[in-house]
């Protein structure tokens, strides 16, 4: 394709999740140069942590793989991992950005052979699995991680063993002395696609997350059901490893509530229906109960709700539970009042999953370092730079891709205007 555009017409995409990947490949395949900056060691973002997508119950890896292939085949896309944008100056058509490249301690020469991990004796809680298991201090997050270069934890890099591990690398790719560096880039447009993080469930005190072992969150549950998760996909309760066959999902846990997140995160109803299917598929004799306020299966997702409703093993209670307690057997007991019947309930479960909502990274740990940025009261990015996917609003994968493709168009407008 014509490389008509000059270096200054580069589009900067911040965030390598499904939105950022989409903006990057769509703009690049239209002929524009893209610099993709991701703060984690691998691309894929939040969707890479998901076990399956609703409503097709298919693996996110399938679509990611195609996008990775498109990146591999496209020399117009440069990507940086473990990198963060630390400063933005200028304006549309002519931004100067500073990017901090944090040390991976492993160079791109890494072949992914895993010799280093075999030598490494240090284990750390696995951030990819929300700390539910231990992993080596030098590793690859999962078998499908892209790029496949290993990465080393910064604390471990300081140890003597790290030097020993470095010597074990046949490709000479490990550099425990690697330092952070900052680079400057001129870009025509910036698309902020930093996505979301799960709302901190510990803040929802009445539900006892963090206090009761068998109260978990939807994102943790996603890892629990995944073959690369802490239990290799076995749905068991954290306290005693017992099969979790009586599972409750509490919708709007910390959402649509002024004490926590006032907005609706759009995906949680559908995510719980999907997760109910994980339980039902794994244990045919299981029981799932979903506590909800409104069931928000927007537009075509309605058929997924209907399909879920057809499953007699799933019960629905319209209610926002008041609190969770724990009985003598480690069972969380959900307590509240059924809005439709007025009946009070206190129901014990093997496991309770809190369907927590999305907090935009741009509100907490990926703030836009730009004086002209505009954000709404919840921290979603609404102006100053372009924003795609869940950096702009809480939304699902299909709408994120829609938004990200649109932002590729808007970014191209900025590049064209610059000329």
């Amino acid at each position, binding site marked *: 394709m*014509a490389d008509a555009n000059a270096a200054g017409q580069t589009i900067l995409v911040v965030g390598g999740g499904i939105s950022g990947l989409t903006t990057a490949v*769509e703009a690049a395949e239209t002929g524009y140069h893209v610099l993709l900056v991701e703060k984690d060691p691998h691309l894929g973002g939040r969707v890479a942590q998901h076990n399956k997508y609703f409503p097709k119950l298919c693996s996110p890896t399938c679509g990611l793989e195609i996008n990775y292939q498109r990146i591999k085949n496209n020399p117009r896309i440069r990507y940086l991992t473990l990198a963060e944008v630390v400063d933005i100056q200028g304006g549309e058509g002519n931004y100067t950005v500073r990017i901090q490249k944090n040390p991976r301690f492993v160079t791109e020469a890494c072949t992914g052979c895993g010799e280093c991990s075999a030598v490494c004796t240090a284990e750390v809680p696995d951030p990819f699995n929300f700390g539910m298991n231990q992993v080596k201090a030098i590793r690859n997050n999962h078998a499908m991680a892209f790029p496949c270069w290993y990465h080393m934890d910064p604390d471990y890099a300081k140890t003597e063993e790290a030097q020993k591990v470095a010597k074990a690398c046949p490709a000479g790719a490990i550099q425990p002395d690697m330092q952070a560096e900052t680079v400057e880039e001129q870009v025509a447009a910036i698309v902020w696609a930093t996505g979301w993080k799960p709302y901190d469930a510990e803040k929802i005190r009445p539900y006892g997350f963090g206090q009761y072992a068998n109260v978990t969150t939807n994102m943790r549950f996603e890892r629990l059901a995944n073959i690369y998760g802490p239990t290799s996909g076995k749905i068991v309760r954290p306290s005693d490893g017992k099969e979790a066959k009586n599972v409750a999902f509490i919708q709007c846990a910390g959402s649509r509530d002024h004490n926590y997140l006032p907005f609706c995160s759009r995906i949680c109803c559908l995510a719980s229906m999907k997760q109910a299917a994980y339980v039902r598929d794994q244990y045919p004799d299981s029981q799932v109960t979903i506590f909800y306020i409104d069931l928000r299966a927007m*537009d075509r997702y309605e058929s997924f709700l209907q399909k879920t409703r057809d499953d007699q093993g799933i019960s629905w209670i319209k209610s926002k539970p008041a609190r969770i307690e724990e009985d003598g057997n480690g069972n969380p007991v959900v307590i509240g009042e059924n809005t439709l019947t007025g009946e009070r309930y206190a129901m014990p479960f093997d496991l309770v999953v809190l369907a927590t909502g999305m907090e935009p990274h741009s509100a907490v740990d990926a703030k836009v370092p730009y004086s002209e940025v505009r954000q709404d009261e919840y921290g979603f990015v609404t102006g100053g730079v372009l924003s795609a996917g869940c950096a702009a609003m809480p939304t699902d994968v*299909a709408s994120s891709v829609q938004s990200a493709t649109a932002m590729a168009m808007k970014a191209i407008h900025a590049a064209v205007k610059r000329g």
Partner: protein
Amino acid sequence: MEQQKKIGCYICTGCGIGDALDLKALKAIATKEQKIPLVKDHALLCGAEGVAMIQKDLDEGAVNAVIVAACSHREKAAEFRFDIDLMDRVDLRDKCLWMLDVKEGDETAEEDRQMMAEDYLRLGCVKIKKMNVPDPFLHSEGSKDVLVVGGGLAGLTAARDISRAGYNAVIVEKSDVLGGKMNNMFKVTPDNQPPYREMGENFIGALVAEVENDNRIKIFKNSIVTKTSGQPGSFDLVIKNASSTKELRVGSIVVATGFDLYDPTKLPANLGYGTSPDVITSADFEKMAKEGKIVRKSDGKEAKRVAFALCAGQRDKEHLEYCSGACCIYSMKQAMYVIDQYGDDASTYLLYQEIRTPGQMEDFYRQAQEKGAVFIKGDVAGVAGNAKGGVSVKVHDHLIRNNENLDVDLLVLATGMVTTVDTLDPNAPSPVGTGREELPGSILNLQYRQGPSLPRLGGAGFPDSHFICFPYETRRTGIYVAGPARRPMGIAATMTDASGAALKAIQAVEAVAHGVAVHPRSGDLSYPSYRPEGCTQCKRCTEECPFGAINEDDKGNPLFNPARCRRCSTCMGACPQKIISFANYSVDMISAMIKEIDIPEEDEEKPRILIFACTNDAVPALDMVGRNRSAISPYVRIIPLRCMGSLSLVWIADAMSKGFDGVMLMGCRHGDDYQCHNVRGSALAEIRLSKVSETLQRLKLESSRVKMVEVNIMDADTLPGVISDFVEQISNLNPNPYKGF
């Protein structure tokens, strides 16, 4: 004239390859057996030195086609990206070394591993020998202009964005004005644009003016497209209005024809449409609000008490099985009109099943509640007209589980959106009750062998083919659907959707102008061609192409439209005469590869199982098996296919005649929730396979020797078991008697 092929084979000995394999023997396969003129090895081929070694040979002209025998083609793509046309990767590491459990000193296992590596190297050598340099398909008089059908919000937004990107757009609008349904809209919902609590002013006038004053946008009003022939880059249109016909060439198309509201006369009787003039649709109400006074239709008296019935036909299997997405918010907006007009005298009731105000629109819901709108979770059980005007609505309240009668001046039915994308496709379910079934023509009237319309998929019949990961994809290349024509959506989403579809449209014209494929094989230069003298006019290729890329000439021979093609190669697999091929992918190539695999004699008791694996999902899954170091049988040989749709039954016969004991096919999930990136590939392969028993019968072989399995990309944990079960099953049969023939 094509340059003579000079092949270089580069074997990496890193990552344990050199330790595990007999390099000398491996090199001998390439040089002596396969006659590759230049064979080199390197201890770390992907390192700077290794890459430089290859580059030097390329620069010096010693080679112009490269085999890299190292790791999976999915690794080190950047390092092994050379500016050459012919290149292949042989996977000695991930799918050989890492997949075999070889204990130190186990000579049999070591021998098996060596045999596997040698076979994979043979496959790579044969493949590159059979590959030709693709000569990209280029239009002589291509166009980069984009047709936008529909001049409503989606169409105007798409055209404006196309123009701003530097391309020309052509809008064809069937009515005499631009603006579409927005012209009747009073105020707009905030839809994720702050402030989220406030309605906004209707901006359609400004957008229409911008588009009308844009000299890169050509507008045809009162016009329809009566004919679309050709392919991306050279779609030839016939645009007609009452008095004239115009012919025009464009490069790609955005269908932005919007929605019809569900026909209220088809609604269930309990909603009361037709019982009183005071039962109206939300569209009628909106128009009235825009005109000024909100009044009863029956007698023109002020309508201060208004009820809104949400889900009027939506989420109902008998009517629209989906939710329309925007009606909750839209009805809240309309309730606020009443409240704003009549202040404290206003009473508004929203009768709902579930309130769906996603994202920041929760704030708009709060605003409606705070302004005094009353929300009742319940059904409309019946409606009766009142003698003195207005209607009495019987409401079954879900919360107090009681029936109550609500006397209101107006009952507004929030009817749902129905896509206007054609229903002419015989496979598409007709949108019940919209009256569109009688539509005489399609929107584009495509002159395609497979029909004039965009195929619609899934239960509710939306025109997109991969709506989660790739929502803009349709089954007609270069044609994208935007806005509520694609799926129900509100104003902000429509504008976003239109911008995205516009991007895809200009991306398509750029791809075509450079002779490369669009998604999913973005950048692929190859395309199908056929040997006319071999054609029997059986039409399987034209019927099976998932993207409608092939027409027929008047003799019934296929007419390929390369720019419509996604290069999935389903046509190649469909052709019983084996005459369809790509420069770098053909039936003959895979046949030659099969024949090159070394089959041990029967008495060696080393069976051979051939696996055809879809390169999109099954191959990565197999790579993961390797990465996890899960062991599989050393008797299998894997040949990746572009798509299971390219499966030719000849290959099964070839494998059986060669002496393979079994053949396994690994394709993507098919059916309603298909995962095939080419929509139909794996489904068609399965249909073809149902006929394989004839082949096996002819060879007097058991039908259980061939098996197809669905493989998900995350099946790395179960795949080794799937493979070993099949190997075991095959081991229970006698060895294939054709070994050694």
